[in-house]
């Protein structure tokens, strides 16, 4: 399989590009930010995502979806990144669906139709501290009656306060750090003893701190098998990581493009600033880094979709490289804009903020770089 988009994927890219530009552009983002929307995204746009078929990309055909792969999800996410489109696509239709694909028919029947129709939103309750450490999950789920009782805290639950259901990772046996003994739960938003406290983030998304004070769930809410949640969590994390890497390729690419345009427009010393070699070389280096990041992300997506052995390695590479490259893009972008780069009026600063949040999502560049070392035995 050649390492570029095939014809169907290119068509999807065209339609995602047009759609985001028309319906989910930066001005749409600004509108929702400025009215201080409690969700941070438009439910109307989420419905439109569904009409476009985007929400069913990773849902299997048996479950009524399109049964496509991470490459296709990435194609849509890249356009989301370029336009800073606010939506629950990454948490719900990518990471959430990856977890639900391990659920039994009943649980799937409860949530997938709503995702396919653009009515349902999911939140991911994984992190418990300020850094992503999924191997240190301490939250507990004790057996209680026919079900379980969840106790602990989660944070950085994006769309947590708008979500119809939270996917919660908790320990059902063993102790913190053990590979086995985790279980994933689908916890409905109206569960008792659950305190959801939304906070706005630097990129205007709304994330929640969630306190579980003996939240009772029944046994049917277990996603996959009890104590075997590691596999489900792995699928969720993989999808979320490659997805956020794809989105960052869009964020970095978008930031680079508006910066290069600005270099052609802005004149100082009687010439466009883009004619100064000091800036040309930095822009060219940035181009090179963004191209490489894009290739790494596509490679990881293809390997995942093919079920290849080294897919896991490449997902870490992709998230680390995309973080580094997009981060360079936004930093160079603001600098090369000069004073206006600091203003709210220009878009470049918005890209910088989104990049910051995405790099932190499900592990930053350091986290994934460290994994690359671990996987190679050093």
């Amino acid at each position, binding site marked *: 399989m*050649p*390492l*570029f988009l095939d014809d169907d994927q290119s068509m999807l890219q065209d339609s995602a590009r047009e759609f985001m530009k028309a319906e989910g552009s930066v001005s749409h983002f600004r509108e929702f930010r400025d009215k201080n929307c409690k969700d941070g995204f438009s439910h109307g746009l989420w419905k439109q995502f569904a009409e476009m078929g985007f929400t069913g990309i990773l849902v299997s055909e048996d479950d009524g979806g399109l049964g496509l792969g991470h490459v296709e999800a990435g194609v849509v996410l890249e356009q989301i990144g370029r336009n800073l489109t606010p939506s629950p696509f990454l948490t719900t239709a990518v990471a959430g669906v990856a977890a639900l694909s391990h659920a039994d028919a009943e649980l799937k029947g409860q949530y997938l139709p709503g995702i396919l129709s653009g009515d349902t939103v999911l939140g991911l309750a994984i992190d418990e501290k300020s850094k992503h450490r999924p191997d240190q999950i301490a939250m507990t789920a004790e057996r209680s009656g026919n079900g379980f009782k969840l106790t602990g805290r989660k944070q950085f639950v994006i769309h947590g306060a708008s979500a119809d259901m939270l996917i919660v990772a908790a320990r059902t046996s063993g102790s913190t750090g053990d590979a086995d003994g985790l279980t994933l739960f689908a916890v409905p938003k109206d569960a008792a003893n659950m305190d959801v406290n939304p906070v706005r983030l630097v990129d205007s998304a709304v994330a929640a701190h969630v306190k579980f004070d003996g939240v009772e769930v029944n046994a049917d809410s277990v996603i996959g098998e009890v104590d075997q949640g590691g596999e489900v969590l792995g699928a969720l994390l993989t999808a979320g990581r490659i997805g956020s890497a794809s989105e960052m390729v869009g964020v970095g690419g978008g930031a680079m493009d508006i910066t*290069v345009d600005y*270099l*052609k427009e802005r004149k100082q010393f009687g*010439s*466009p600033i*883009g*004619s*100064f*070699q000091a800036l*040309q*070389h930095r*822009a*060219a*280096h940035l*181009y*090179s880094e963004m*191209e*490489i*990041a894009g*290739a*790494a992300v*596509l*490679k*990881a997506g293809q390997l995942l979709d093919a079920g290849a052995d080294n897919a896991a*390695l*490449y997902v*870490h*590479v*992709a998230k*680390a*490289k995309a973080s*580094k490259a997009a981060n360079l893009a936004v930093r160079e972008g603001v600098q090369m804009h000069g004073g206006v780069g600091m203003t709210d009026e220009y878009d470049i600063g918005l890209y910088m903020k989104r990049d910051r949040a995405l790099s932190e999502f499900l592990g930053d560049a350091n986290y*994934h*770089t*460290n994994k*690359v*070392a671990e996987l*190679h*035995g*050093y």
Partner: protein
Amino acid sequence: MSDLEQFKTEIRSWLEENCPPEMRKPVRGDEDMCWGGRNFEFQSEAQKLWLERCAAKGYTVPDWPKEYGGAGMSPAETKIFRREMAKLGCRSPLSSFGIWMLGPALLKFGTEEQKVHYLNQIARGEIRWCQGYSEPGSGSDLVSLQTFGEEVSDPVGGDHWVVNGQKVWTSYADKADWIFCLVRTDKEDKYRGISFLLFDMETPGVSTKPIKLISGSSPFCETFFDDVKVPKDQIVGELNRGWDVAKYLLGHEREMISGGGLGDGSPSLGAKMTGAIGLNGLGMLDDQILRSELAQFDVDALAFRAMAEKFMDEMKAGKSHPAQPNMMKYAGTELNKQRHELVMSAGGSDALEWESEASRGGKKPREWLRTKANSIEGGTSEIMLNVISKRILELPDG
């Protein structure tokens, strides 16, 4: 089984049967490579046999057409062929500027006669080529070159050029049989005054003088032309349009040099350094800062490997930007330089040994120094960045 799977099986079994075991050991350096040519001395019978077997099947240039000595493989087949070679650890049967640089230019600009004549010889490893581009006053600003070819009409001996001038940094000029050379044929027009000539290094008036490098070896020369007669049919492309050929060839040269970014193909530099540095109780390299540098390098190297694959696939499908080889060269050579900085760092004082047996004649420091040329030869990194900013980002001229 699909056609491609069938193909893969056939290639695999051919390689298993025909690639001698000695040719499946990693190449240790230039001295292990087969360069071909009139004066080449094979290091082993196996090396000779491997070249002959591959040449007979067109496998030295698998994607060239059969009539020019290739195997006529499609892009997908070529990719499979190279992967199977890599899986079995087969050495490249032939390393050659003819294959990497001149061949592609001849395929695009050569006459049918030239293609049949030169390409078949290149494919069989019969002629070793060198590149006469740079001059003492014309490095990055190559188009300012001064070596001059005067047209002489000669009804008896045949029309020809008389070439005078000097080239420099001509890699392997003292070992090469022929040169592809940029020669000014019109002093009035800078760009449209250069012609692309081919001639035998044994032609009277050609002389070479080796230059010693910081790595200790002398792979390149000053090359002098003193009234060198070059017959009229040894021009590639049109008269005074050699710059087009030169640029096209540079694209292939840059692509080839960028391949250094892939290293020896092993998946992790960090993993290779565990022997030298050792692991601590937690199973981590016993130098936290170096570990993190190596891990970041591995991320960059694996990402670059994906880029190299994507670039090749896009190029074969005609989807890549024509200036993309410049980006590949920039990124690949900077990466390779960094790789060797890390190897030196991890090697400590062992890596300083220049001549000992343990250091295999100072392999590490010599390679480290040689890689510094990667971002100079074939166009410097700064020139690559200039080209990217002008041709890809379309930034305005200064």
